[in-house]
């Protein structure tokens, strides 16, 4: 039986193994069911207690029952035993159960290997710097546990230092693999279906309250790097889904929205154009959130008939896109009549008061522009309040909002405005996306968060095309000019990251996000394209996977050779005392006194004293210091003294000459 052959586990290694297990499992607590996290913690604590009290391990039958119960509970919780989330939960559970039957060294090696595997699974959930640093520490701990397991008892400091040294030695190999391992677009292995659940972003539907949830998230939607100056804050409208269908409650993208247009949309720029590269976080949607309105789009994207820029596939990973946009535009002077008809459709019977009001405006004013201006005046002069906590609305949502509650959020204003316009016979639609963004002074990137999510409106006027109208601006101009935290009352819920009053906290956040951005751009964003760029800069003009593999193999061989040579030479590596003593002897050699290899320190000092009596004192001092340090139990102070002897040597010699 293999068990009996394996060496028994030293009790001293157990705290190391438990700490490594805890460090590798702990971050998963963020997404595992609470009961599982607690049981894992309890199992590890139980094992630690058994170790402290030197008690025997629980009987196998009990462990079997616990393990089967745990697996059954996990299966019940996830309704499966397959898939990413359930698989990770099972590994975490095993990680806590294994220590309870850990008797031999072989058992604990299995635990460490399981730990290394568990480390990888964290990258399913997060690839941030913090995760990277934590996992680096966890890796160090795992290596330290291995060292403790096989290297016997040493001070903890020494074990951790050795582990860190081992990791540092693997750094060149890691860099080579990172830079040269042939990259493929997309993930290396197919992810299970649940991999993209929980990505937040805009949706193709908007009902009252749907944007609030987004706004309560401080996470970053995308970052933009402008080539040159930034457009003014008030024209930073990032276009997402355009909602043209209204059923009285929900605005949604018409089914035809994603189809390519029959005729290319015509966008004319009336002012300055801006070039920029935007790095979008994964959101599982196709909208690329270009600045209104895009003139040039990245290859492979499509400009839909309502001017949304669409990618071919939903965005599953963070990606970079280059655009050129014109904030001041004229779009589609001539519009497809079918589309205009769509933009006039309203559910019959609903919102009678609003319709009546709109029809009275239509009678009163001649041009659509005047009707729109009247609507905005209506919002500005009737004590509308901008808040994230609007009261609930009834069946006639727009009537309730316009004439009763008068408290709402951008989606209420956009929605009510578009309903009024359509009722007044002006083609209008709701546009959702993001508005604004915050410039990070650290790296010059404009950061746009989920909390910058916004809804505005567009109306079509014959001869002038589609024009952007933002009714929110007439209620809460500061929302557009200074951002959402300035526009909302302090009592409204906003993520702490968005509403930061203290300067140093804001600066800290900016630095953190800039570092994160650099990490995203250069580490996580190191894709096949960047790899090709790097390789061509290194002289590989047309790298294919064959010569890349060859280069990889060569460099790995070189790195391993260097490590091997360093390891072999380590046997003769000098201690600090030896180096100091050798420096002293080299200095003396220049004075004509060469130490023979076989000469011990005191014998050498005695010879120097015979042949060059003036140097006797310092030589005896240095020799006895070295003897203490190298052959006895020297102190750091003595090492310093020995170094001082070397420093004093030439001057003392010159003095006597």
């Amino acid at each position, binding site marked *: 039986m293999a068990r009996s052959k394996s060496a028994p586990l030293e009790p001293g290694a157990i705290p190391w193994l438990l700490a490594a297990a805890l460090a590798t499992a702990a971050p998963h607590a963020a997404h595992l069911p609470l009961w599982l996290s607690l049981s894992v913690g309890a199992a590890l604590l139980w094992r630690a207690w058994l170790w402290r009290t030197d008690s025997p391990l629980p009987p196998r039958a009990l462990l079997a029952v616990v393990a089967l119960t745990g697996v059954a509970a996990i299966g019940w919780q996830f309704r499966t035993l397959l898939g990413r989330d359930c698989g990770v939960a099972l590994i975490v559970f095993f990680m806590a159960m294994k220590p309870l039957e850990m008797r031999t060294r072989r058992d604990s090696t299995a635990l460490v290997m399981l730990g290394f595997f568990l480390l990888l699974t964290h990258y399913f959930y997060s690839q941030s710097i913090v995760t990277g640093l934590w996992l680096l520490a966890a890796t160090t701990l795992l290596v330290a546990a291995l060292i403790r397991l096989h290297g016997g008892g040493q001070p903890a400091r020494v074990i951790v230092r050795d582990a860190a040294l081992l990791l540092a030695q693997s750094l060149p190999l890691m860099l080579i693999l990172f830079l040269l391992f042939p990259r493929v677009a997309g993930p290396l292995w197919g992810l299970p279906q649940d991999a993209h659940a929980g990505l937040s972003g805009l949706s193709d539907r908007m009902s009252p309250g749907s944007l609030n949830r987004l706004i309560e998230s401080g996470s970053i939607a995308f970052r933009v790097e402008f080539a040159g100056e930034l457009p003014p804050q008030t024209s930073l409208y990032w276009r997402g889904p355009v909602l043209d269908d209204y059923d009285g409650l929900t605005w949604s993208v018409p089914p035809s929205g994603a189809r390519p247009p029959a005729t290319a949309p015509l966008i004319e720029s009336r002012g300055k154009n801006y070039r920029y590269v935007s790095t979008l976080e994964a959101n599982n949607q196709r909208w690329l959130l270009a600045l209104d309105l895009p003139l040039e789009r990245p290859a492979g994207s499509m400009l839909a008939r309502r001017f949304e820029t669409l990618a071919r596939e939903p965005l599953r990973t963070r990606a970079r896109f280059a655009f050129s946009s014109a904030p001041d535009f004229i779009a589609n002077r001539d519009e497809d009549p079918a589309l205009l008809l769509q933009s006039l459709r309203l559910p019959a019977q609903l919102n009678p008061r609003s319709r009546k009001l709109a029809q009275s405006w239509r009678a009163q004013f001649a041009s659509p522009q005047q009707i729109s201006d009247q609507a905005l005046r209506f919002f500005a002069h009737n004590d509308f309040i901008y808040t994230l906590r609007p009261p609930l609305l009834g069946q006639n949502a727009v009537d309730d909002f316009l004439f009763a509650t008068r408290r709402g959020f951008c989606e209420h204003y956009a929605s009510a405005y578009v309903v009024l316009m359509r009722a007044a016979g002006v083609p209008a639609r709701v546009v959702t996306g993001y508005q604004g963004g915050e410039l990070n002074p650290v790296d010059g990137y404009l950061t746009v968060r989920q909390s910058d999510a916004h809804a505005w409106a567009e109306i079509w006027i014959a001869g002038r095309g589609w024009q952007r109208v933002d009714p929110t601006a007439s209620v809460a101009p500061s929302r557009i000019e200074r951002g959402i935290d300035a526009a909302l009352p302090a009592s409204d819920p906003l993520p702490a990251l968005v509403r930061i009053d203290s300067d140093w906290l804001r600066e800290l956040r900016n630095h953190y996000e800039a570092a994160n951005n650099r990490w995203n751009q250069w580490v996580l964003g190191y894709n096949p394209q960047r790899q090709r760029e790097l390789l061509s800069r290194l002289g590989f003009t047309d790298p294919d996977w064959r010569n890349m593999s060859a280069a990889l193999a060569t460099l790995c061989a070189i790195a391993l050779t260097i490590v091997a040579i360093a390891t072999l030479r380590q046997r003769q590596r000098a201690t600090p005392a030896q180096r100091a003593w050798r420096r002293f002897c080299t200095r003396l050699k220049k004075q004509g006194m060469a130490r023979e290899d*076989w000469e*011990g320190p*005191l*014998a050498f000092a005695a010879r120097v004293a015979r042949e060059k009596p003036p140097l006797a004192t310092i030589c005896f001092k240095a020799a006895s210091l070295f003897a203490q340090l190298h052959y*006895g139990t020297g102190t750091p102070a003595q090492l310093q003294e020995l170094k001082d002897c070397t420093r004093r040597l030439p001057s003392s010699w010159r003095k006597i000459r």
Partner: protein
Amino acid sequence: MSSTTKPSTIAQVIDAANQVILGKDTQIRLALSCLLARGHLLIEDLPGVGKTTLAHTLARLLGLQFSRIQFTSDMLPADVIGISIYDRERSDFRFLPGALFSQVLLADEINRATPKTQSALLEAMEERQVTTDGQTRALPEPFFVIATQNPSSQIGTFALPESQLDRFLLRIELGYPDHAAERALLEGGGRREQLPTLSACFSPDQLIPLQREAAAVHVSPALLDYVQALVEATRASAQFVHGLSPRAALALLAAARAWAFIDGRAMVLPEDVQAVLPGVAAHRLRLANSASHARAEDIVKLIRAVAVS
């Protein structure tokens, strides 16, 4: 015993011994190291250079009980160990201990004895006990044998085999005294007469703690590297028939510790190893190109071939 008195008492012993045996400081120190390292000493030289005087002097200075056996070719083991004789009054055998039962035994001209007698002595040296008539008797503590032998080229001797030479921790040669020392000797008359006047610097029970302390002198990994390098060099060298054995390496370390202890140091230096190496290694190494054992200059050559670490 406090640490301040210990080196000074040893220094006293060395000074007093130097008064008796002139110009042989190194040999006296080596002999003392051998004693402190709980080893046995072999002195090899021509007759009349002071071998017996040295042994006698050390015994007196250390306050140890001393006895002497002059070996001859007709000696039997019982002459050394002792004999059981029948006691009529008690109707039993009574053991009469031989010269072996003393703290310092001078085995003079050991190579004149037959191998049978030699091995009886050497067994006792190794085991520090004697078994006769089925009864085991412990030898006194400390037990220190100083054997002398004439160079084996002389007629009528039985050279000690390798295995038995290995029992001696150190082998030293006294050599002729230098000019000044010989003059002083001639002027002052023979030294044997001074011996009874020497007073002991030690009591026997002081010696055992000293031996224990000498065995505890610090040895660093770097020094072990050096000792191993030396031993490996003897094994790799074509100059010698065999290299040094692990027992010899242990002997080297023990002797070096005692040497450092006599020098009043708390750790062993390569110099200590080098100082005792000729004594430890020469009689254990046979030269490949001649029948004789390694000479001092061979050992010096060995020392110079190995870098200290």
